[in-house]
């Protein structure tokens, strides 16, 4: 769907995107995460040609974005919807006209427009606000209208640039649920740019972590969040305080075992005591997954690992 290879971008002398390679699959929700100034919005804007790139390749729906002329780029953009942090609605147009705008621009007939706008109003649940102006809407409602406008032309891809950053937690939740619904029902591939980890954990299946224009992590979010490497830990601002005596063993509980009483069962069967020194449970993508660090006597460490290996689906590592 989207294939990015060795992408570089410079602003004057400064390298803002540094050798980025990533593949986005059809139908997934993919997150681009990073702190402000990491280059994530710039990368997103390269996908629909709002920003240019200096070197490397970026192909969307089989077309190299850099090589498109104006009308080819317009045509590609009609397959890519986009939503923004500050909603970017036309204040002088009502909800209906805002949602209809992309179809008007592309010269659709009045009846087709009416039908499509009504469908979208139902999808976003704002039928009763059809003739309201943006200033009469709440932030969440404005973003819903913006989402409807981004979907007007039946795009294959939806780009979201910090779309929930200006919203309160409950509104954020409802907007994310709407995006998930769009992804599941309409099969739209969604790329989310955000600095909010909660957003990533809630909806994304895979994520790309950016820092100073460089990729510092890429993969399924269960792996990124539960088996963070050192860079990822710094990124998340997490720090583990572990005892220096004995053996520290980290256990990962994939979602299929996270509700089983594995730890207590192991203690009973092996008849041993241990200390739980660190732990974390996360809800990722509607699955609960967890990690736990236990501290055991050095002598019994091999018994524990042997038990985990043979009797459970838990993934482990000795720290």
């Amino acid at each position, binding site marked *: 769907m989207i294939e990015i290879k060795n992408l570089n971008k410079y602003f004057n002398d400064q390298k803002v995107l540094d050798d980025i390679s990533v593949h986005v699959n059809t139908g997934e929700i993919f997150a681009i995460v990073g702190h402000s100034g990491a280059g994530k919005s710039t990368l997103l804007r390269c996908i*629909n040609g*709002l920003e240019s790139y200096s070197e490397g390749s970026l192909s969307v729906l089989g077309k190299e974005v850099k090589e498109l002329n*104006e*009308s080819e*780029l*317009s*045509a*590609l*953009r*009609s397959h*890519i*919807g*986009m939503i*923004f942090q*500050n909603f*970017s*609605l*036309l*204040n*002088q*147009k*009502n909800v209906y006209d805002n949602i209809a*705008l*992309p179809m*008007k*621009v*592309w010269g659709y007939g009045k009846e087709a427009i009416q039908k499509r706008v009504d469908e979208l109003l139902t999808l976003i649940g704002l039928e009763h606000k059809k003739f309201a*102006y*943006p*200033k009469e809407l709440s932030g969440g409602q404005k973003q819903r209208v*913006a989402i409807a*406008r*981004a979907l*007007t*032309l039946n795009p294959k891809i939806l*780009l979201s640039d910090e779309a929930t950053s200006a919203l309160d937690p409950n509104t954020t939740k409802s907007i994310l649920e709407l995006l998930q619904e769009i992804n599941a029902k309409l099969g739209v591939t969604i790329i989310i740019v955000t600095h909010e980890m909660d957003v990533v954990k809630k909806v994304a299946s895979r994520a790309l972590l950016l820092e100073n224009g460089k990729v510092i992590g890429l993969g399924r979010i269960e792996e990124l969040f539960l088996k963070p490497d050192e860079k990822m830990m710094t990124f998340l601002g997490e720090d583990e305080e572990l005892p220096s005596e004995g053996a520290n063993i980290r256990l990962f509980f994939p979602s299929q075992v996270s509700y089983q009483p594995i730890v207590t069962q192991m203690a009973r069967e092996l008849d041993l005591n241990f200390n739980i020194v660190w732990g974390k449970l996360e809800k990722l993508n509607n699955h609960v997954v967890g990690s736990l660090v236990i501290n055991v006597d050095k002598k019994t460490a091999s018994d524990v690992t042997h038990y985990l290996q043979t009797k459970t689906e838990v993934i482990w590592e000795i720290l």
Partner: protein
Amino acid sequence: MEALITFFEKSLGMKSVLIDALLETLTMSLVSTFLATLIGFVLAIVLITTDKNGIAPNAYVYKILDVTINMLRSFPFIILIIVLFPVTKFLVGKHTGTFAMIVPLTIGTAPFIARMIEGAFKEVDSSVVEAAKSFGTRKFQIIFRVLLPEAFPSIISAITLSLIIIVGFSAMAGTVGGGGLGAVAMNYGYYRFDGIYIFWTVFILIVLVQIFQSIGDFLYKIIKH
């Protein structure tokens, strides 16, 4: 009492002169505002398009237009009328009278309106333009589908302001051969030293400006969302 009766008798005698002058002032102001708005609008679109952040940046065109507009705006209006006498004569056939004054009034205020409309366009949130681009809006559609509707209330305010300035300028034009209330104030009030003429011309101008401003404010209020 005696003085008041004389004042009203004299005022009644001025009625036809003042009504004719008012009609001339209205003709000059409204026609000039209309023409200056058309020219100003086209200039504003060229400015906003060729601006370095515009949709088709062109430094040469922008700079030439920029300097020309600034130059025209630096002229004291009364001097501009005189400088434009040959142009006016070429276009209208003479350089005095109500219709002749439409030429300098239009040329003198079009650059001003152009700047005001350019400002209104620039005020439009750039992220709205970005959003329009994101669903494939072409460059020139952006002007008419996005910038114009979003800037429309500010443009109405700009036209109101220009109309009032043109009313003032048209009174000035009356002193160098134009018609209208300015000419009456000059010929009857100043040269013949008749204070009552001055009083009525100023009074009518005040009322006229109030009416134009109120209409402008009302329009702004109903179209602004």
